[in-house]
């Protein structure tokens, strides 16, 4: 079946065989957007995080049929004129990645915080980021990156 998706500001029609397919698979396999990653597939780790109408959301447990006309933003959608956005640049500057697998989700999660609250406290950052897991222990660098973006 054909489904129209609004992704990163563009409406595109995709052909999905099974309407219960997770949005994540469609983004990666049909649209070639490899920012969101498959981590646990159970809405537990946050590697697949995208924004749905601006809210951070696990795309691995979102059946594509349920999306409707809601707007999706992926990591690629944070680029400004083809270059890393402010928060993405802060992650690069702070070298806030070890293996890097979780970082796309981390950036999406953090972006939603900064959108709502441009200058959060450390406690607010920690509470907000608690839904996303990193197995390498990059948390300190991630904190630094978010703080950098919040104060830049």
């Amino acid at each position, binding site marked *: 079946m054909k489904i129209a998706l609004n992704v990163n500001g563009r409406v595109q029609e995709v052909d999905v065989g099974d309407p219960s397919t997770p949005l994540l698979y469609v983004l990666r396999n049909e649209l070639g957007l490899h920012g969101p990653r498959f981590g646990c597939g159970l*809405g537990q780790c946050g590697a697949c995080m995208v924004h749905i109408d601006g*809210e951070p959301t*696990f795309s691995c447990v979102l*059946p594509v*049929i*349920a999306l409707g006309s809601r707007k999706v933003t992926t990591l690629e959608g944070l680029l400004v004129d083809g270059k890393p956005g402010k928060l993405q640049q802060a992650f690069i500057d702070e070298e806030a990645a070890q293996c890097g697998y979780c970082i796309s989700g981390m950036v999406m999660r953090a972006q939603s915080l900064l959108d709502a609250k441009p200058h959060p406290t450390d*406690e607010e950052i920690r509470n907000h980021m608690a839904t996303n897991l990193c197995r390498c222990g990059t948390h300190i660098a991630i904190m630094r990156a978010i703080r950098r973006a919040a104060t830049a």
Partner: protein
Amino acid sequence: MSRNAIAGPASGDGQALMSVRNIALGCVIALLVLAAGLWWVWRPAIAALPEHSAVLADRKNIAHGADLATVGNCADCHTVSGRPLFSGGRPLPTPFGTIYGSNLTPDRTTGIGAWSEEAFKRAMREGVDRKGRQLYPAFPYDHFTFATDDDIRSIYDFLMSRPAVENQVPANQLPFPFNIRLMVAGWKLLFLHQDPLHPEPTQSEEWNRGRYLVEGLGHCGSCHTPRNMLGAEKRGQRYAGGVADNWRAPPLDASLVKRHRWTVDHLTEYLSTGWDRDHGVAAGPMADVVKNLGQVSQDEVHAIATYVVSLSDGAEQPTLPSADKPIADAGSIVAVYDGACARCHNSGRGVGPSNALSLTLSTAVQGPNSANAVRAIMYGIQDYRTHGGPYMPAFDRILTDEQIAALTRYVRTRYSDQPEWTDVEAEVAKARHEGSSP
């Protein structure tokens, strides 16, 4: 006709005098009644402990008190998440207004640092603070009144052994007339029954221990017994099921426990780990309770389970879980279920990190209203994340309100033999308003 008219000139001076006397007598009686009432509700202040007085307690007593305070779930109402334990300030919404959990740390000005053991015991038994003020029954002294002197002393020793935290909790937000504390005295006259619990000689020691914990410090009835219009537990409907933070607290009586295949062993497992292979996970406010019970000795939890299961002795036979019956014309919601729910809930018995079970086993799905199913779907199971327990993501942003409602109805029809719910849309709107997803 007014009294003056009766006492007018036509009635004669003698009658006027009688009337004045009657009025005077009436006034005196009214004053006496008022005075008796005030005398009855008045409680003296208990002298503050001298400054720098140390409460001497042996360590064993303090440790025992810590266990009892854990069974009593004291920290849940008396701590704001992320703040020091027992430092108070957590808002407790009630149908009458918002009450704030008090500071139970031994700070002299904002906590209970100036309270003697006698003052603490009076608060636990009678619901009166050190200064003699009536305490609102959101503090469940209707249960704590059953605690023994020794146990109250242990809890007191434990609380006084902890670091003092200066934290002035906000004033309660109660509209008139509920802001008049004296009214609580009338409430107690009606609803506070202080007769001690005498052991039942025909029952086992363990059963009696469980009863003491359940009826007393555990205050299970506070949520699992329905309340009347004045907020008191209905005595005639003990454990018939109640409400906690808008979650449905299922009945613990014959209408549920045995029918839902609870045995002492299953219930012990559930109460100490938050999860049982035939019932799934403790969610909502019950998650806090099981996290507490997971810290006390297994013997105490086994005793609690023994007593709770006995509440449904003689009940009808357990019902088997209803079968999964796929529905032919459910439309696109089937794909939503398959994409959002099936990977965990239809993958076998508690396999994988989520420990999800078939929804045929879910008490929430079988219940008389949709309150718990809606809240589990919208806000997930997040309480055990930090210690590797069962988990479910919140679907409040993944799905729209209409999809959540349709999914709730679908799950009810597919996984229970119970009648359709009629409250789903209203519960979704209500839960959306409460909002608690991280």
